[in-house]
């Protein structure tokens, strides 16, 4: 028991750390998400040195500046004439912390014109690490909104259909099939195109993702209906019904608790899935517009063959996202077990 609780808290703590870094992206990111350095497109991650060319050891780590590789067009070599020490708590470009406080303080950085690119840069010379943090703000919001809407509507509709059965079940489930089959992309195209140009790009994107979430009720609804169907035939439910329990009571006390497990499994699967759905949206031209960053756009840059084969550091954001998603799954698994142990 203790072990289980410990596991839950541990994963929640990890998630809280991730979310904190993303919420306060401005502080943790050394640069803005749209700051271009046109001299350094597709620069590899900065190498952090302790020992300089003379073999001298420095307690404070430093990076070298980059210059074009004369032998290899489009790549860079370190310029050991320019060393820039890394510093903690530096003053840099202005930003708004969590969207409210205007600040210029960043957790770490290096002296200008030196650049510190932890994960390298993209084709515009923008710092991928900063974009990863800022991108999380949009992507996580999108994932939660969409998954929440799907589960909410799917849960309500699925349990109504399963519990009452009959014509209501028929109508709702056929409606669900209808929803699954329709060419929703057109709706997305239409919604996207109908929005006025003044609407901010991140709002457009969240709206599109919310629409996808709403449309997505049908799948969880089917699963939840299945659970409710068999749950209501359980002996203790029939017994409670015989004792005169109301529908609302039965649903709340006996039947819905049995669906929580499935709902949580679904939620855990859906949040990352909706975050990743943006990759497909980007593929069809419905993703977040430049210069905004989101995890979907970071991943979808890997779609391009030349990025895939030329710039290995463009994989790093994808690799760093795996632990985030994994901790989501882990937290949800732990929650699921907890719910179960309470329900039993």
């Amino acid at each position, binding site marked *: 028991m203790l072990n289980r609780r410990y596991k839950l808290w541990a994963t929640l703590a990890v998630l809280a750390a991730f979310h904190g870094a993303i919420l306060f992206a401005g502080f943790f990111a050394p640069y803005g998400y*749209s700051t*271009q350095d*046109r001299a350094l*497109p597709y620069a590899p991650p900065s190498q952090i040195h302790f020992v300089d060319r003379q073999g001298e050891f420095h307690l404070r780590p430093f990076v070298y500046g980059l210059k074009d590789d004369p032998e290899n067009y*489009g790549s860079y070599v370190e310029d050991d004439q320019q060393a820039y020490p890394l510093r903690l708590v530096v003053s840099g470009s202005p930003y708004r912390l969590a969207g409210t406080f205007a600040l210029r303080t960043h957790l770490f950085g290096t002296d200008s014109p030196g650049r510190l690119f932890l994960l390298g840069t993209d*084709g*515009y*010379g923008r710092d991928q690490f900063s974009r990863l943090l800022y991108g999380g703000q949009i992507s996580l919001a999108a994932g939660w909104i969409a998954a929440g809407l799907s589960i909410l509507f799917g849960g309500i509709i699925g349990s109504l259909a399963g519990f009452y059965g009959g014509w209501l079940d028929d109508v709702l489930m056929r409606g669900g099939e209808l929803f699954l089959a329709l060419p929703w992309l057109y709706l997305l*195209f239409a919604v*996207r*195109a109908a929005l*006025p*140009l*003044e609407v*901010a*790009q991140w709002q457009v994107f969240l709206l599109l993702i919310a629409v996808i979430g709403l449309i997505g009720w049908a799948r969880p609804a089917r699963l939840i209906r299945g659970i409710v169907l068999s749950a209501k035939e359980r002996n203790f439910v029939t017994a409670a019904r015989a004792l005169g329990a109301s529908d609302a009571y039965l649903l709340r006390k006996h039947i819905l608790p049995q669906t929580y497990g499935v709902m949580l499994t679904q939620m855990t699967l859906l949040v990352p899935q909706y975050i990743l759905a943006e990759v497909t949206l*980007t593929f*069809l*031209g*419905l*993703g977040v*517009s*430049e*210069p905004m960053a989101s995890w979907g756009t970071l991943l979808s840059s890997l*779609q*391009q*063959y*030349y*990025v895939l*084969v*030329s710039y290995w550091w463009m994989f790093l954001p994808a690799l760093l996202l795996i632990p985030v998603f994994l901790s989501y799954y882990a937290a949800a698994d732990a929650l699921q077990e907890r719910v179960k142990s309470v329900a039993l």
Partner: protein
Amino acid sequence: MVPMRGLVPISLLVGFACMFPVQRAQGVQTKEERMVTGSAVGQPGGTITVAVRSDPKTLNPVLAVDESTREIIDCMNADLIHINRETQKTEPALAKSWSISRDGKIFILHLRRGLEFSDGQPFTADDVVFSFQVYLDEKIHSPQRDLLVVGGKPVSVKKIDELTVEFQLTEPYAAAERIFDGLAILPKHILETAYRNGTFSKLWGVSMPPNEFAGLGAFRLKEYVPGQRIVLERNPHYWKADRAGRRLPYIDQLVFLFVPSEDAQVIRFQAGDTDLLSRLSAENFAVLQREQTLRGYKLEDLGPGLEYNFLFFNLNNLTGKKLPEIERKQAWFEDTGFRQAVSAAIDRDGIVRLVYNGRATPLWSQVTPGNKLWVDSSLAAPPQSLDRARELLRTAHFSWNSTGDLLDARGRAVEFSILTSSSNAERSRIATLIQDDLTKLGMKVHVVSLDFSAMVDRLLNSFDYEAAVMGLASGDADPESEMNVWLSSGGTHLWNLTESKPATPWEAEIDRLMNQQQVTLDYKRRKHLYDQVQQIVAQELPLVCLASPHILVGAKNRVGNFHPAILAPYVLANVDELYVH
């Protein structure tokens, strides 16, 4: 009767060092008058495989619209007068020679004798007359019809004898020879019945049986497999021969694979599945270049093509459109000083470097250096200058507030959006760079990327946009192909499609110059007129031209006679001369 006295024979051989009509067939009247090409003699046999984006939509040359379809159809058909893709000048094709009346209104084309369609049936003037009847038929809706309407009247076509056809225009037309390029001559003996029955537009769909097809091109249909490939085979009746007298084409088969994305095409080429590759991005070019020797292919950068990319502002008359916000912003967009400031602030070199990996040429007007005959090379090419941009804005009564935001004369912040198509990665990236450039001037710019159809809907129908990044690529180097862009009444006069008469004096001047060049037959005088158009565009900036991407191509080393061109169909420009080692 033809007014023979008015006819001036045109010297056809000037400028075509590599091609000349055969004169050997004298004496024998029925002997076929083949055309002899000048390139190296190759080996017969073998197959060449190319990838195209999608299935052909039809095999009917009259109805073909999209690029993949045209590319395939052009290998199966021939035209009367052809534009040499390398010299960009016209040269004889099915017509061995032609003459033009002094007033430029009457064309007499002399057809090659003894030619046969790919099914062995003879080719005569009747086929030519029939073909033009079909192209001009309004019920058929051929996209090429417009080219054949000069001065509001369709060309009239008349058969003089079996091998002579007369074309009459209502007014002189400078580019008249060029309209024949790409107009496939159809076999009357196969298509006439369907045409009379009114079922022509259903004819020659993609799944037609190969034996129902006949054309005058180098290849004929062998097999079509939906979603996978179309195989063409050598046309044994083709009318060109090499220097050694061997009938072209050399290869037995030409296979088009349908590969839906550029990256996949690049990969198939890299894997050795295809022999030729065109239309690849600069980044993929760099990727392929690294393995050039290892994998046995070569890549070529042919320099700028005809495509020009540009930024433009919505200058449409929006009265009654219920778009007050955009109407308000049009006060800035209509200000030439504002447009000049934007142009001065744009880092064109940055676009070339970051978007095209250096494989593009910056532009300040619409004609690219690839268009050797028509580019005005005396145009100024000022580098990015934020100082000059600020100066221009100040002169146009803009100012800055304490936080550096740009304000107009009435104190309102300058904020607008740039529309791009999400299906074009390069233009989206251009927009992102421009956005960043203009931010430095204190403008607030948003990039809005929509799918292509949604964007076009806004540009052409609703006019609900502020600025957009687009590109146009004419099919031909001649200024005539740009008429619809520059005439104020033109259908692709993108920045203002609502003009009933020119909205500004300089647009009136462009109208005058464009109309003038259309009827001017002398090249030097036409060039002078078109130079002036380019100067006005560079000065008034209805389109802020940015860059022209280079045409990048590749071929396996085993492909001989590989002479790609910057005009479509690029690597297939001389498909009848290609051979495999």
